[in-house]
């Protein structure tokens, strides 16, 4: 019994000692989390300027994403998220104009889209916007002017313009409507029944619009198709898959995506397949990126399209878009994609503070002289991995002659005034022409007279180039205003060697196999 008592007493004494020891222990830390909270606490309480707590959290989160050193991962603010959403959605509330800066502080209407409030109100291309809802545009960045013009469908916005030849400013009130952002702005038929589809982005409308374009061109009797994805910077992956599916057989692989902690996802053609036999050329260049490269890579690997142009950008990564609280979105690289033959076309890059991308050296694919990994298409053709989709037929971008470049440099300071003269004259001429019009010599004479009257001086050594160059521009403007983009593109076909090559090869090929056989051996 005494032993039991002794044990009880010892226990009673021991418990508080141990408990005290626990309490005395220094608080253990999860070092990373404590570091973050300590820094945030110090910035919040001691930084020389006051920062709202929300700003501190946002900066911390944004800094983390930036420090990943991945140029494609980004924390989107609520405003940036809205813009991103607008671009991917393919529709927004607004007036239906494309605006740009003619010169710093001068906001010009570059395009008025049909069936929009701007079109209905009679806004003209070349008009200058001087105020939006009493906000002078002179002091605003272009993006802010766009923001002011956009808004809820049904809401009103008042815009004041100046127009060349009209002494007083013009004030118009618009009721904003849903404006459609086209993925396929127009279609055209060139040469001997060759259909042309310029695909400029992968937004929510893309597959539907490509589907409609192909169907319309086939109805018009197209015997070959050109899918022009030059300068298409990509977009929604699902749209790239649907667009590829249109040209592939059910079940054919389009792309495989390898992510962390997930099995490889293999995406296959499914749904609608409507253009399985018609010979197809895909046009690409250095501005073709990402989702565009998924489509070009799949069609090249399955020998479904002949790829013409120049090497593509080389972005073989997929980002996932996560919706966060407070309107934020996290766009984060979560996977690397591979074409059906197993190639990655990714070329590592860094993003400079000015927004430019630079290739991270050493880049084994930056020059054609460096070996790129070779793969085989379904038919056994050699296709290359490494940086970007390498075209089956390399056709360099059109470049201006030395004289033309010199002329353009010389007239650059007078660009806005020249633009105004050209646009005004084109607006007058658009009602005087038939679809197959040939520009009379009198147009050039009158154009040069108007330029002179507007006190625009042209160096005599460039006079011949000026007459030819500016007349071509005038004819293209007249054709577009009178008959649309397709007519204008037809008029400028001679300036597009890549498209001319595509048309020429398609005109000589009844089948895709013949088209591939027509192509020269790919250059490396």
């Amino acid at each position, binding site marked *: 019994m005494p032993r039991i008592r002794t044990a009880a007493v010892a226990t009673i004494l021991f418990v508080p000692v141990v408990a005290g020891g626990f309490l005395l*222990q220094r608080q253990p830390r999860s070092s990373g989390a404590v570091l973050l909270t300590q820094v945030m606490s110090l910035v919040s309480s001691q930084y020389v300027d006051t920062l709202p707590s929300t700003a501190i959290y946002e900066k911390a989160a944004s800094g983390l994403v930036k420090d990943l050193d991945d140029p494609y991962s980004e924390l989107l603010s609520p405003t940036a998220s809205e813009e991103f959403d607008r671009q991917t959605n393919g529709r927004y509330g607004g007036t239906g104009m494309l605006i740009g800066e003619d010169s710093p502080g001068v906001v010009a209407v570059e395009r008025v889209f049909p069936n929009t409030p701007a079109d209905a109100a009679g806004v003209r291309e070349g008009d200058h916007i001087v105020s939006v809802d009493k906000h002078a545009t002179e002091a605003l960045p272009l993006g802010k002017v766009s923001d002011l013009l956009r808004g809820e469908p049904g809401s009103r916005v008042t815009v004041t313009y100046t127009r060349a030849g009209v002494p007083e400013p013009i004030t118009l009130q618009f009721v904003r409507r849903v404006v459609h952002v086209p993925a396929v702005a127009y279609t055209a038929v060139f040469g001997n029944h060759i259909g042309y589809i310029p695909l400029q982005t992968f937004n929510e409308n893309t597959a539907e619009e490509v589907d409609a374009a192909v169907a319309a061109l086939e109805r018009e009797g197209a015997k070959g198709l050109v899918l022009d994805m030059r300068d298409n910077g990509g977009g929604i992956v699902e749209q790239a898959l649907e667009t590829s599916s249109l040209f592939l057989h059910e079940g054919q692989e389009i792309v495989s995506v390898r992510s962390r902690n997930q099995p490889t996802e293999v995406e296959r053609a499914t749904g609608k397949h409507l253009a399985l036999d018609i010979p197809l050329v895909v046009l690409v260049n250095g501005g073709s990126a990402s989702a565009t490269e998924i489509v070009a890579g799949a069609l090249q690997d399955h020998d479904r399209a002949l790829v013409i142009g120049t090497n593509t950008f080389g972005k073989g990564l997929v980002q996932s878009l996560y919706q966060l609280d407070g309107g934020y979105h996290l766009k984060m690289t979560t996977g690397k994609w591979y074409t059906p033959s197993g190639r990655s076309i990714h070329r590592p890059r860094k993003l400079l503070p000015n927004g430019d991308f630079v290739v991270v050296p050493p880049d084994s694919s930056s020059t054609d002289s460096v070996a790129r990994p070779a793969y085989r298409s379904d038919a056994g053709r050699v296709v290359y991995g490494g940086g970007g989709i390498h075209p089956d037929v390399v056709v360099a971008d059109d470049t201006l002659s030395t004289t033309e470049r010199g002329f353009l440099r010389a007239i650059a300071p007078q660009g806005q005034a020249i633009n105004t003269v050209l646009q005004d004259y084109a607006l007058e001429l658009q009602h005087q022409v038939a679809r197959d019009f040939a520009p009379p010599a009198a147009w050039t004479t009158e154009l040069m007279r108007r330029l002179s009257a507007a006190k625009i001086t042209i160096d005599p050594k460039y006079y011949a180039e000026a007459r030819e160059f500016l007349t071509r521009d005038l004819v293209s403007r007249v054709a577009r205003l009178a008959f649309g983009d397709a007519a204008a593109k037809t008029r400028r076909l001679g300036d597009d060697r890549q498209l001319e090559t595509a048309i020429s090869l398609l005109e000589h090929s009844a089948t895709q196999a013949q088209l591939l056989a027509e192509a020269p051996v790919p250059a490396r």
Partner: protein
Amino acid sequence: MTRSLQTTARRLAACVALSAAFTAVIVTPGSADPTHRIVGYGGVLPLPVAHGTSAAAPTSIRGDRALAQRRDARGEHGRVLYASGRAPGAATDTTSPRHTPCPAQRVAELRLRASMAPNS
């Protein structure tokens, strides 16, 4: 036997009182020194208490920190069984949401702005 129980009860009461006093003595010095200062460039600045409360610090920061510390303490003393990847010290333990959200969309883009598209 009765006497023995009474004796034990008396001793027990005395021990409890002694233990409580002992514990109080041990715990008292545990608080951080709020007067601690460092000399910084340009003058003398008070150093905010790292573990304690800082009036200027946002409430949620303090709350998160306290929770994290308690959880870390429990974890280090082996009193909590954590699911795989959820143990203190894992990158996700204190800062990430409990459930990884599903992506709303997959994108592969360099820029979305189309050259011939309305922007206003």
